[in-house]
């Protein structure tokens, strides 16, 4: 019982939370991990002690006090109503849950550390966005609805908590869209559609974080003594068009207005949930700067955006690629080329058109 740390993890009923709690429990620096959620987790929790409690009511304060928790990892901010029911329930869970949890933490003297999994959706997505958001930038248009608004409110409460309890080390991780073979998120289910609708005339920039990297960064944050707000994302960016080409999926560009309407159709069909914030994201895209993640937090993601996405594609049924196979067959019969030198599409006899 060396370090004697007891970590409370909220939101363990879902895969990411459960996996994180399990791996954290095996860490030598941590004694005990307590998982809290309203619904019991579906999978194996390993060494994690599961406490069925609702963070929306003061019971959570008793759990924290009784179990002598010193570190709280809040992962219970959910992006989709999903199993929780309607949007009202989701907001209740996100905002009221966070308030109750933070209130309980504030009361508990022994709590030394708080790690909150937030999202880069806090920056919103609009045509007036800078190319790369750094941690101290605000969203250009404050979100008015949905998950983005919840995230902003949660962050506001967390900042308030950090002010009231300066002795607690607060780490807020703004994670880019988490992707991976098992991830269920609005963006992942969008990308799993057989034919992918896109917004006509827009090509958003996407950044991904692999699910194991999410796991690692949360563990890193629990064990590190560096508090603050950090953007977390894999290196590099993918354009949506590029991502779709890599998947070999067919895309159907449709005007922005129709795209929004399609969202509600898909939602009622329970295929994908194109919420207004996801539509904005798929229109304008977003990029976040991860300099501080490296320099201050000292975390290095294993997967770049492209690698994380490649692993995601590998789990999908293969599609397309016919044109590429034809080209490959033709290319086999031509002499090999040095890939370093970019091919020049010079039309014969027009070499000296330049000055």
């Amino acid at each position: 019982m060396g370090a004697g740390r007891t970590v409370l993890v909220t939101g363990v009923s879902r895969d990411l939370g459960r996996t994180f709690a399990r791996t954290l429990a095996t860490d030598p620096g941590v004694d005990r991990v307590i998982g809290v959620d309203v619904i019991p987790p579906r999978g194996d929790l390993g060494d994690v002690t599961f406490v069925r409690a609702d963070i929306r009511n003061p019971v959570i304060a008793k759990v924290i006090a009784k179990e002598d928790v010193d570190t709280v990892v809040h992962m219970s901010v959910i992006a989709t109503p999903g199993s929780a029911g309607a949007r009202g329930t989701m907001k209740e869970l996100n905002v009221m849950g966070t308030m109750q949890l933070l209130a309980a933490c504030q009361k508990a003297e022994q709590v030394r550390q708080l790690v909150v999994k937030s999202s880069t959706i806090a920056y919103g997505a609009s045509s007036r966005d800078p190319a790369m958001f750094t941690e101290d930038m605000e969203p250009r248009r404050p979100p008015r609805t949905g998950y983005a608004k919840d995230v902003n409110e949660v962050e506001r409460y967390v900042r308030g908590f950090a002010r009231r309890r300066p002795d607690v080390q607060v780490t807020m991780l703004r994670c880019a869209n988490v992707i991976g073979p098992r991830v269920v998120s609005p963006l992942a289910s969008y990308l799993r559609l057989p034919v992918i609708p896109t917004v006509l005339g827009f090509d958003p920039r996407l950044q991904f974080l692999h699910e194991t990297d999410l796991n690692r960064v949360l563990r890193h944050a629990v064990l590190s003594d560096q508090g603050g707000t950090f953007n977390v994302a894999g290196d590099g960016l993918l354009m949506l068009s590029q991502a779709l080409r890599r998947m070999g999926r067919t895309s159907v560009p449709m005007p922005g207005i129709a795209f929004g309407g399609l969202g509600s159709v898909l939602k009622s069909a329970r295929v994908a949930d194109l919420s207004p914030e996801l539509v904005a994201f798929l229109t304008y895209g977003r990029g976040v700067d991860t300099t501080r993640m490296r320099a201050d937090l000292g975390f290095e993601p294993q997967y770049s955006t492209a690698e994380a996405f490649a692993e995601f594609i590998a789990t999908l049924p293969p599609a397309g690629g016919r044109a590429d196979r034809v080209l490959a067959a033709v290319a086999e019969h031509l002499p090999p080329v040095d890939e370093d030198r970019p091919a020049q599409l010079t039309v014969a006899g027009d070499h000296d058109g330049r000055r």
Partner: protein
Amino acid sequence: MADADIIPIGTRGQPGRGAGVRSSSAARGLAAKSGANKKSPAAKPTPSAPVAEPPTRDTDDVIATTPVEDEPVIRTASLLDDAAAVPSGLVAPARTEERSSSPLAGIPVGDWLAAFQHASRELFGDQWEPQLARFLAFLRRRLTGDYTVDEYGFDEEVTTRFFLAALRPIAQKWFRIEVRGAENIPAQGGALVVSNHSGTIPIDGLMTIASIHEQTGRHLRPLGADLVFRLPVVGALARKGGATLACTEDAERMLRGGELVGVWPEGFKGIGKPFSDRYKLQRFGRGGFVSAALRTGVPIVPLSVVGAEEIYPLVGNIPSLARLIGVPYIPITPFFPLLGPLGLVPLPSKWLLEFGEPIRTDEYDAGAAEDPMLVFNVTDQVRETIQQTLYSLLMQRQSVFR
């Protein structure tokens, strides 16, 4: 035997409209050789009766190198390797018999090959094989998404090979751009190119990008108004071409990253000014570009563009409609609404681009960017330089179109 097997259908081989008594004159003209037309339908069934063998034998005679039953794609490609082996004349005799078997067999493979080789040689020159291979590699990279974009969404490959390739002839042949002082553009490291803005549609920006790439091989990264990124297609293309939003964060980030950044501080006031105000510089924004340069310590390269004012002489505006749509202005040029899309062709004015001496900003101390007076002074200095150069270029110019 051929004559005996004919089963005449309908009008007993007489051309016409079936039940009619007399055929039309056009139809009769077709039937000039009435004896032969009995023969030709009969000629088909008999030779092609052993379907399995003869057509393949025909092609085998012509192209003796590979068996026909192979995958067609592979065979086509392998024949490409020995270019001399397939002269186009060889294939003539096999044609007519094959037509009945398949519609695709109408043109024999050899003809396809010859045509393909000819086209390749036309398009790619004598070194067409490596050229084509490289082009195919490029095509596959694009198809499979196997390329990288930078954090602003800049797609260097497609910019160099398509956007710039498309702009180059316009710059050279249509506007006959003459660049002066290209040596003032730093060969490496961050620099801020500040230019006057004119021409109703920001074509001067595109031409500046093309000219700078032509002269120095560097990509100018333009900073665009947020209207650009709100528009569909335009915004996506702008990001692919290396543009980003004109805001302090992006400007400083790009300059720190050692990019060559282009700004047009007049903005819509510059491109949307009436023709009577041509070559009169408008207000230079709030000097944000100067503070960005001061903070990052990069040189400012003033650029004066002469010629862009005349491409679409803006003689009128419909402010109420513009407000309704949410754009800064709706231009009326002598040709635009009048000639419809044809009015969108820019007038072929002669352009002069002069890059001035770089204005150094690294000598100021750290807090210089927070000193509004200094920022205004530097802004004025840049503006004056560009205005004076514009006047002198106008003096040197013989005429608008020459």
